[in-house]
């Protein structure tokens, strides 16, 4: 498959009053054409920062220390502001977490959509209007002409997120970055928005980077999953591999903490402790302090990626040949078995 984006050895830090926060500490990943890559991790793991680098909208105190982001042979981190403006929206588009605040409250829906059409495609106002109405229809909103004239506050949250998606799609981008696009919506609307994104992906042939902390959402949309922790990717692989054969203790923890509807007896699992303070990044494996399987070497040296299959890699010393053989906890194993069965049944 053709790679559309290659992120290589990305390091990003933020200058703050307290010192330099190393938010991204060496991230590598590829995005293939037409796939959905989910980046999963808890708040502060660096997933949003990664995508902001891709869009070139990193906050002013953010610095790219090292690494490159290759798109069409160009390194996006080295582009001038002007060059980046031409790519943003047109080649790479983004949708955000909270539809209630992502639209400008003082402008009509129609204006906000046609604005980028006029900007990137040199359309005149009339054509832009028709195209915008088409887009509103495309994202599944009825009475598009009426909506075109309305203001954001006159629309529900779900509809607003559809409008944000319409804005993102306005210029036929090749890549869509969705930064927790369903987190702020209630569950039924979540499902509709996910469905819409999947549908549009097939229709338009988008490559999607899907940022989320919700593994339930990931299961629905992702072809591949990358798990991020403390500014690094700790495990990545095909969706099924990460879900059914997780290797990193952090991924185990994440999977175990997904609420299980059938299991009402046990308390909901949570990973104890908090992520490390990235003002002072740990010397060894960042997860070791919270991991019950931590080895001595975890405190000394950061684990490299160990290959599990051609597509599946995990960065944990547990996979080293000299490490003690540790399997995932029994309770999780049981849940995964059930998940597999559930997926099969669902398939039928």
């Amino acid at each position, binding site marked *: 498959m053709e790679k559309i984006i290659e992120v290589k050895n990305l390091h990003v830090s933020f200058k703050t009053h307290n010192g330099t926060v190393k938010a991204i500490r060496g991230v590598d990943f590829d995005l293939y054409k037409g796939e959905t890559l989910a980046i999963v991790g808890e708040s502060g793991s660096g997933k949003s920062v990664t995508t902001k680098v891709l869009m070139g909208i990193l906050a002013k105190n953010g610095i790219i220390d090292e690494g490159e982001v290759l798109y069409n042979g160009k390194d996006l981190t080295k582009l001038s502001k002007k060059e980046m403006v031409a790519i*943003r929206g047109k080649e790479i588009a983004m949708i955000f977490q909270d539809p209630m605040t992502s639209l400008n*409250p*003082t402008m009509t829906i129609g204006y906000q959509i046609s604005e980028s059409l006029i900007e990137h495609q040199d359309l005149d106002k009339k054509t832009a209007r028709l195209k915008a109405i088409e887009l509103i229809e495309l994202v599944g909103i009825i009475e598009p002409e009426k909506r075109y004239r309305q203001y954001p506050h*006159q629309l529900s949250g779900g509809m607003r997120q559809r409008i944000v998606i319409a804005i993102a799609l*306005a210029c036929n981008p090749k890549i869509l970055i969705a930064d927790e696009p369903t987190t702020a919506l209630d569950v039924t609307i979540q499902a509709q928005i996910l469905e819409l994104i999947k549908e549009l992906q097939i229709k338009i042939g988008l490559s999607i980077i899907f940022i989320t902390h919700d593994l339930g959402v990931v299961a629905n949309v992702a072809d591949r999953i990358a798990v991020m922790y403390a500014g690094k990717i700790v495990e990545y692989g095909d969706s099924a591999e990460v879900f059914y054969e997780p290797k990193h203790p952090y991924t185990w923890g994440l999977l175990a903490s997904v609420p299980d509807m059938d299991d009402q007896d046990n308390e909901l699992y949570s990973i104890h402790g908090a992520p490390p303070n990235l003002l002072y990044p740990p010397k060894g494996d960042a997860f070791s302090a919270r991991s019950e399987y931590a080895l001595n070497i975890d405190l000394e040296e950061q684990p490299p990626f160990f290959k599990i299959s051609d597509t599946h890699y995990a960065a944990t010393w547990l996979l080293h040949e000299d490490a003690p053989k540790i399997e995932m906890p029994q309770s999780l194993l049981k849940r995964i078995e059930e998940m597999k069965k559930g997926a099969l049944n669902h398939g039928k």
Partner: protein
Amino acid sequence: MLRYIGKRLLISIVTMFVILSLLFLLLEFMPGSPFNDEKLNEQQKELLYEKYGLNKPIHERFFIYTTNILKGDFGVSYTIEKNAPVSRMLETRMPISIRLGLQALVFGSLIGVVLASIAAVYKNSKWDTMTTIFAVIGISIPSYVFALGLSYFLGYKLTLAGYPIFPMTYNLYRPIQSSILPTVALSMFVIATVARFMRTELVEVLGSDYIMLAEAKGLTAKKVIFRHSIRNALIPVVTVLGPLTVGLMTGSLVIERIFGIPGIGDLLVTAISVNDFNVVIAISFFYSLFYIIMALFIDVIYGVIDPRIRVDKGGE
């Protein structure tokens, strides 16, 4: 919308009536009379009271006064310009004060918005610090200090040096040129207030999600700021500008004294000190009227800037 405006107008009329009654009552309770001249004996005073109808019972006088106001008659001046109709006194003075106030408002808001934008876009830079310092100075130093400074350096010194660009005092025949210095002096406070309020708001707006989305759309920084930010940041500024405008339009006593401007700020203070009741009531009346009109106007402006508070069918 029409119904809303109609309702507001009705409320305004009632408010004006209440204000008028209060003014009338308060002045009634004020010690002293317009005819406190030592040279007048009791009998002469009695005659004067009789002449101006001041010996009638208060409710009767109030009725006569209000009906006259409806006809545009604000009575005559008792002391300042004996027997001159108050309406005529205001006719010449009010436009000067209003014009000066509006000039200061427009100039001050424009400069304020520009300063605020620079400060917010280059947050924490030296421009930002300079704006903050300027704003603190503008708010804390009274306008007459600026007025005296401007009058001395740009008026007096420059004229002495052979460049009579800015007249030191107001000149009825050169209304524009001679109003520059007082306008600038008056606008310092406006600039400072607008700059402070707007900077805070603009910083907030620039950090908002919809600005991130506008950037993600691929708009240039210029378009993001001019199209998406400034208008949204203006909303709270409008709130402070309302009362400020009334204050400016009704004239500033000190500024008018320093530059010798024949406005109503000067007139009001004189009228109070010599118990020229009709003049006091008339000016206070217009002051209140401006306030009410301004409040109504600001509500309309809000609607123009922010569709969320537009009073129409609205959301569903």
